[in-house]
């Protein structure tokens, strides 16, 4: 059946919700036809931009001589802070991210100037001719240093409930310890890029690889000192974002727009991978301290936590991220007496930013560590201690921020997975294996996740969409969400197809564009399909209502008699093809276009008192990971993974499974091979894939069993009762970390707790083996 003539006899549309619809761009990915910003044909005379970066971590700029650079071959334009007509800032919140350094530099890699030339080679060659003199200032390069000096980007924040200190003091067992948790580079395969095309008057159009076109728009407008309406941002797809393109693409976009407006020529700024990794922020690394009191069963009576994260030189999104880490300090556990202090350290390093999970994984990491250590101390299976501390379903179910957990399904998921993964049997076998294996040791761990869904900044929880039906019955869909691989466009199109009961091929998904849907929020916080799906549904429903009314009138029936069937509408005994209905409606002057809007209900939060309902609902899941560790070298490998994850009623199981697997692998990478390493001058030395190691193909466990939880159904009224999926499963990577720890513990016959720091590189593992062996001896 041709695409142009929909089948009006079938009983189910192609590509509705709950179907395994393939990614809309799959066929374009494989033949190279999918267009990313760098693939757009370059306008005639386009300039290429290179950014001059600080080479010192903290200094006053004494002098800058850019004359030779300006005179260099092919250079059309040089920009510094003086050349910004508007405001020299691209920050998302606080106004503390200068586009170009002003008088001082605060990290190695900070942009100081931009040079635009006919080719990128000429721009780079010119940049080398810049002469900048610095007067170096003392630099704060580590969290420890910042804590000691009280260097923060914002005030410390405390969340407390009950009497943590009191209960710790009276508890039978107490553990006091600390742990380090490394950051993580997003390593989107497509680096940061923006291309700007100057328009008439004050207009500019920017193609930006961003998760947040509206914010890019505001920042470009602010830098150019023009109204928002002069700036249009368009984004068809990203070659990965993972949070890294939430706030900081505003820098590339602003600079390219500034060049475009200054020269009247199109301008592109595409960061080379190394520059990208040096110049842009990563997942926040944390230093944690904790003290926990518990009873013989491992039940936590009181716990006190200290979170200290590295913001870098500016705030960026740190407050929201550090807050989310606090919101996840409980994970799935009932902690009646708890205190969390959070410090957001200002250091002379790149400004850390969003990364899938947005602080949540870090928060969970700590409580899982605490539980693991409690189990070790009591010589219990950590699984048992975890279950002991789970939130109740009807009681013991209030989070430290006073939100009642109404949708707790972790008990069921844990039990099912424990069973299906054969956890108990395998654990026993592993212990047996370890007794006889001198060099290689196995480890196993099962960890849960409960992840809060919604932006914790309440006003961000809104979305818009735009739906047009053309007179041939084809539909054009636009919304504020960004397609970055997660299948958002496919899912939202499924929703619209379902609403109109038309085959998904009839729905054209178009690039996100600030001139079509305004004032959008970032595609982040896993909220993409929740919010944009709802907004698109609202838009579709508006038109659908008009069409229903129209059909009823046409056929002199009542609205209740109008039934939407695949590619057609039935009114009483008559059926009319959707295309015909649409044409009729047009001829009868019925509007076939509508916007749709959605604001997440129920949520509110009082940050000062740490009280409220920051999340609409929670997503749950659990994973069992088994590893093999070489105790002579510390090398380790994940050998088997079992995951059971709750995505509610899945809009698209294929896409959701892909998200779960990808997230898990990313989470495991974060805690194993992915290590960011700065030298003593504050220079990031792992600034390319040659030195920064994300998981490669062979790192994937050969035996990987992933299931979506069949009973899943969102308790809240989300889009078709589905749940967000982007971030929560990343947290499951924590099971890999604990499995490694379990393997190490075997070296001392589980006598000494390895107290491993993350990431568990071969080096950290071997050092932990060595440390525990020595401790066991003494």
């Amino acid at each position, binding site marked *: 059946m041709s695409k142009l003539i929909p089948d009006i006899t079938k009983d189910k549309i192609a590509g509705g919700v709950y179907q395994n619809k393939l*990614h809309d*761009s*799959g*066929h374009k990915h*494989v*033949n*190279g*036809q999918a267009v*990313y910003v760098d693939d757009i044909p370059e306008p005639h005379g386009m300039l290429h931009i290179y950014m001059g970066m600080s080479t010192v971590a903290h200094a006053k700029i004494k002098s800058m001589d850019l004359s030779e650079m300006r005179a260099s071959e092919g250079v059309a334009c040089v920009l510094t802070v003086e050349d910004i007509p508007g405001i020299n800032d691209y920050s998302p919140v606080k106004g503390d991210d200068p586009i170009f350094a002003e008088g001082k530099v605060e990290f190695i890699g900070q942009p100081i100037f931009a040079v635009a030339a006919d080719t990128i*080679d000429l721009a780079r060659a010119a940049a*080398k001719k810049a002469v900048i003199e610095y007067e170096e200032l003392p630099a704060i390069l580590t969290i420890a240093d910042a804590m000691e000096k009280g260097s923060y980007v914002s005030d410390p924040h405390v969340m407390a409930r009950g009497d943590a200190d009191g209960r710790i003091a009276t508890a039978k067992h107490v553990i006091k310890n600390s742990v380090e948790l490394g950051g993580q580079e997003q*390593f*989107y*395969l*497509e*680096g940061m890029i923006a291309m700007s095309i100057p328009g008439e008057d004050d207009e500019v159009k920017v193609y930006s690889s961003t998760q947040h076109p509206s914010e890019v728009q505001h920042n470009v407008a602010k830098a150019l000192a023009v109204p928002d309406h002069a700036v249009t941002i368009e984004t068809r797809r*990203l*070659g*990965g*974002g*993972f949070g890294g393109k939430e706030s900081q693409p505003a820098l590339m976009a602003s600079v390219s727009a500034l060049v475009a407006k200054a020269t009247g020529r199109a301008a592109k700024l595409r960061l080379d*991978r190394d520059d990208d990794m040096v110049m842009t922020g990563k997942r926040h690394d944390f230093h944690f301290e904790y003290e926990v009191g518990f009873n013989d069963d491992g039940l936590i009576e009181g716990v006190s936590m200290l979170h200290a994260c590295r913001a870098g030189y500016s705030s960026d999104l740190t407050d929201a991220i550090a807050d989310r880490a606090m919101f996840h300090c409980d994970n799935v556990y009932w902690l009646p007496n708890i205190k969390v202090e959070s410090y957001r350290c200002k250091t002379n390093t790149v400004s850390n930013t969003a990364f899938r999970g947005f602080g949540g994984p870090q928060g969970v990491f700590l409580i899982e560590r605490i539980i693991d250590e409690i189990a070790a101390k009591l010589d219990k299976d950590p699984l048992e201690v975890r279950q002991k501390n789970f939130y109740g379903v009807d009681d013991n179910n209030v989070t430290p921020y006073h939100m009642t957990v109404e949708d707790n399904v972790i008990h069921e998921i844990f039990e099912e997975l424990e069973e299906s993964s054969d956890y108990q049997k395998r654990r026993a076998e592993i212990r047996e294996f370890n007794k006889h*294996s*001198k060099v*290689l040791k196995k480890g196993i761990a099962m960890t849960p996740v409960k992840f809060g869904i919604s932006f914790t900044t309440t006003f961000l929880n809104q979305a818009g969409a735009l739906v047009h039906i053309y007179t041939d019955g084809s539909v054009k869909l636009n919304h504020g969400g960004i397609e*970055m*691989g*997660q*299948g958002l466009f496919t899912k939202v199109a499924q929703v619209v197809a379902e609403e109109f009961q038309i085959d998904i091929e009839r729905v054209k998904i178009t690039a996100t564009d600030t001139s079509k849907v305004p004032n959008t929020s970032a595609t982040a916080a896993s909220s993409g399909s929740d919010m944009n799906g709802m907004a698109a549904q609202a838009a579709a429903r508006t038109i659908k209502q008009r069409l229903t009314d129209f059909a009823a009138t046409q056929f002199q029936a009542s609205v209740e008699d109008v039934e939407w069937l695949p590619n057609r509408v039935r009114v009483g005994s008559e059926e009319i093809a959707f295309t015909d209905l649409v044409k009729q409606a047009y001829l009868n002057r019925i509007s076939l276009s509508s916007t749709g809007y959605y604001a997440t209900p129920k949520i509110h939060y009082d940050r000062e008192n740490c009280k409220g309902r920051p999340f609409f609902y929670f997503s749950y899941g659990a994973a069992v990971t088994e590893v*093999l*560790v070489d105790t*002579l*070298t*510390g*090398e380790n*490998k994940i050998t088997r993974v079992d995951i059971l994850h709750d995505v509610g009623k899945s809009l698209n199981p294929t896409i959701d499974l*892909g998200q779960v*697997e*990808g*997230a*898990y*692998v*990313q989470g495991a990478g974060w805690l194993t*091979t992915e*290590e960011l*390493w700065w030298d003593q001058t504050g220079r990031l030395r792992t600034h390319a*894939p*040659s*030195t920064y*190691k994300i998981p*490669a*193909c*062979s*790192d*994937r466990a*050969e035996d990987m069993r992933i299931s979506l939880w069949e009973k899943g159904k969102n308790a809240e009224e989300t889009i078709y009762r589905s749940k967000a999926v982007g971030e929560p499963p990343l947290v499951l990577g924590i099971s890999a970390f604990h499995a490694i720890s379990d393997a190490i513990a075997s070296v001392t016959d589980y006598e000494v707790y390895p107290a491993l720091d993350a990431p568990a590189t*071969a*080096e950290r593992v*071997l*050092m932990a083996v060595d440390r525990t062996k020595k401790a066991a001896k003494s």
Partner: protein
Amino acid sequence: MTSLQFVFRGELREIADIDPTYSVLRWLREEEGAVGTKEGCAEGDCGACTVVLAELGSDGSLEYKALNACIQFMPMLHGKWLLTVEDLEALQADGSLHPVQQAIVDTSASQCGFCTPGIVMSLFALYRNENRPNVNRVNDCLAGNLCRCTGYGPIIDAAQKMYDGTEGEGFTPAEANAISLLKLIPSDQGMSVSDGERHFFAPASSDELAELYKKYPNATLVAGATDVGLWVTKMQRVLEPVIYLGRVRDLREIKDNGDNLIIGAGITYSEAHQVIAEQYPDFGELIRRIGSTQVRNAGTIGGNVANGSPIGDTPPALIAADAKVLLQKGSDIRELPLQDFFIEYGKQDRFESEFVKAIKLPNRASDVIFRSYKISKRFDQDISAACGAFALKLNDGIVKDIRICFGGMAGTPARAKQAEASLIGQNWSEENVEKAMQVMEGDYTPMTDMRATADYRMMVAKNLLMKFYLETTDTQIETRVVGEKELAHV
């Protein structure tokens, strides 16, 4: 011949004027508007730029190899057929997707899609070269294709599923056409091109090479460009002139003369892999873990040696096996124990205009026990923090000879002479090995960098000696986390 000739999109392309170090990736994207091939790193690590080059094999058929276009220089294409992701559909002739592409679509093996063109091309080469390989082979094939989205599972599925499909009818004629065009390019002639200012020479014999190198002592020699490519893309170095070794026939030979394997300096890892593995199975395992398929298809052992890096992976193994390096200057050829070639960090025993001609690797005597171990943060496609190789001769449980060589422990690949001495003549026992481990602390003063701390390097080097001991004395013990686990005991 003074023009670059290669086959592209079914035609013989001839370019007389080209920047000698212009990358294939940039040419595709900037000159041809062929933007399907992506740049993810411009340093050979991510695979987003993977293309396939087909060359005429000795039997007249085409050999397909996946390569990183970002670090291949344009003139290196001479005499080859360049295939990119845009070609596959066209070659199907019936408008359908190639089975590789279709499998990726069907298994949902693309999410953001940015890695996908590279993955398509890596799998395309696999599809052409092997039939339904096992998952380990698939992992090896894809080690140089990073994907940040999928977690790889669906891609691995696609690598199986692709064999269910058949190639379209366009392939056979396209191959025939490519072969006939490639035959028009003389394979035994040197080639040179320039952009008017900078020059690229591709001599066809080592005498020609010697001549040229004498004339241009400042020339940069390029074999696979897996090191040199990065000087251009990452350091913006301007190289003039460039002398390419890939067409020097007598450097592209690997011969067994009964006592030694003579590995021509132009032999790639891929070409050497099996031959070396037959003699030294664990050296084969080491090669399997050098770079990725794309890197091994380009990179040479000669380049690894000549580059002089203290963290190159082959020198420790070669030195432990007592390999020699053959150097040629003009018509003079000299031979040197490889360990003497490395003088100090950044300095090798190589004269002006002298080049590495071959590596002479002794055939393994039946009483030599050999192992090599590579320690890196990630198993595949990573540079070693430390890389150790051991060659042991026992006589009745007594150490007759032992050679221990490490990379990553000093400014050059270096032997653990004191540890060796402490073992020779002694019982090959755990106790003596433990003593030697202590002694080894006097052999090395490693450094701390982003790959590892000095402490870890020392500790792991010592432990590798213990691992070697355990593998040579306990036939049951499990010691390998990855790779063919039996290699611990062969």
